């Protein structure tokens, strides 16, 4: 595995001028946001993920690429312990979130509230646009109208949706178009004020223009939070991710600086084949 401390990245490709250019600085003191050790997942005896060991750094976009059934989504489910809601899903190994073992946590709800999740298909909750974004703060006990208004406007603005919906905040969120709903989902995730944002193939149901807008948003968010981006678009990982992991058949084949991987600087030939579109 490439050591992220020593690897350099000549063209960081950072579109956000406010953020420092060098990787070391942007990763805020090089602290580990996530430490995954020997993670495995079984569904009633079937192994879908095994021996996954990797680190995700603070304030980086961590890409995960790989074909279907590689275990990418199961990996995300483990991180916010959504496995407790899935029957027959057994998780082994260890995950540290900001240094805390998530399986030792008493308050799993607090963990989930610090992790925003965006699904492949947009989920507009059957609430108004306003309430969609105000839900997470309300769950935390915020009921002050002014405070909620500020949160809603800020999150919708950051998700690049505010201008389109500011005049109809009280209409149903589930009636927006697919691309708008996906941005609403992102706004909802941001309303949790998360440290970690996990996106699972967010662009599947989104048109290319909206995809580009969301990608711009993600680049800006990198300065404030850690982002894990699961994508089946190899080029999307190249555009966004600082480092990329390649998953295949329930294993993490390798993790490396995105640019290095795409320049063919790989440890395992399968990674190069996948990136070049020879399989998957």
């Amino acid at each position, binding site marked *: 595995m490439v050591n992220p401390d020593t690897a350099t990245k000549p063209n960081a490709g950072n579109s956000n001028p406010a953020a420092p250019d060098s990787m070391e600085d942007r990763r805020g003191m090089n602290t580990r946001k996530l430490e995954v050790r020997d993670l495995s997942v079984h569904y009633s005896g079937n192994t879908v993920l095994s021996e996954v060991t990797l680190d995700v750094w603070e304030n980086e976009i961590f890409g995960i690429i790989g074909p279907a059934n590689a275990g990418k989504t199961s990996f995300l489910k483990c991180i*916010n312990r*959504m496995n407790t*809601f899935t*029957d027959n899903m057994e998780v082994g190994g260890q995950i540290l979130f900001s240094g805390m073992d998530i399986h030792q946590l008493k308050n799993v*709800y*607090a*963990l*989930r*509230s*610090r*992790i*925003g*999740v965006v*699904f492949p*298909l947009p*989920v*507009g*909750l*059957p*609430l108004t646009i306003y309430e969609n974004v105000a*839900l*997470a703060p*309300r*769950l*935390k006990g915020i009921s002050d109208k002014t405070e909620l208004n500020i949160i809603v406007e800020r999150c919708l603005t950051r998700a690049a949706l505010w201008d389109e919906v500011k005049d109809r905040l009280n209409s*149903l969120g*589930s009636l927006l178009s697919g691309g708008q709903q996906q941005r609403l*989902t992102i706004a*909802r*995730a941001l309303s*949790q004020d998360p440290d970690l944002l996990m996106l699972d193939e967010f662009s599947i149901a989104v048109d290319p223009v909206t995809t580009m807008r969301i990608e711009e948003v993600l680049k800006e968010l990198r300065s404030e939070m850690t982002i894990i981006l699961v994508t089946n678009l190899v080029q999307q990982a190249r555009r966004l991710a600082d480092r990329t992991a390649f998953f295949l058949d329930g294993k993490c084949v390798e993790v490396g600086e995105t640019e290095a991987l795409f320049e063919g600087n790989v440890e395992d030939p399968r990674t190069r084949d996948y990136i070049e579109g020879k399989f998957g």
Partner: protein
Amino acid sequence: MFEETELIARNKRIQGLYRTLLMMVTILLVLPVLVILATLVYKGGSIISMEFLFTDPVDGMTAGGIFPALFGTVWLVTLALLISVPLGVAAAIYLSEYAANNWFTRLINLAIINLAGVPSIVHALFGVGAFVIFFKFGTSILAASMTLAIMTLPVVIVATKESLQSVPYAFREACWNMGATRWQTVRRIVLPNAVSGILTGVILEVSRTTGETAPIMFTGAAFFLPFLPESIFDQTMALSLHLFVVATQVPGVPDALPYGVALVLISMVLLMNSLSIAFRIYLRNQKKW
């Protein structure tokens, strides 16, 4: 390419034949309902009046009104639902939102389905044993309502469970991912979107409960009671039993009277069903996803 061959012509003929056949069968099935309603209106319509609805029966139930029975039925049904709806909805929420998918849950579900299939006379005997004798409620509105409640419980549970589960799973997942507890999710997302469906099920139960006779005749409904009950520990008359009594047990009843009672009973049921249909239409228009 598009010319009509012999085969296509034959297929068309057969398709027409089946269409007519199926339509005839459907019309045949609607016919009894229309005949029943028409007969009741024709034979009993003349007796219906405000006086009939709101006075007591007199002359050994051969004359006068049906007020005590009407009043009793409203009481029995209301109380039965006040008992069965909270219990049924609570059980359905547990089964749909909390229970793990294991043998125990499957056993409970099986029991509920079987409970729905128990004949009403068996419920009646259970009611006598449990509420009248064991809990010492005596033959009373309370005992009869509880018997009706037990009988309606499985349907309330099943209807509620189905309308809870019609709320897409993705909504729950989205909420849980935000750090919501199961209860917060039920309270804020699932229940508000299932409530119209639950109400539809409940109203359908009202119409079924209104017509039930067996479960109440041993537990709290009286043959004849010339005054209104004063508390839930009194007996009461009920429309369904009253219909049975005036139709078969009392000599010298004018022809129109049983038909009139039946017409009132069926009108109550139809009114409730129409309400439920109206609700369903409202529900369709309220679809939020």
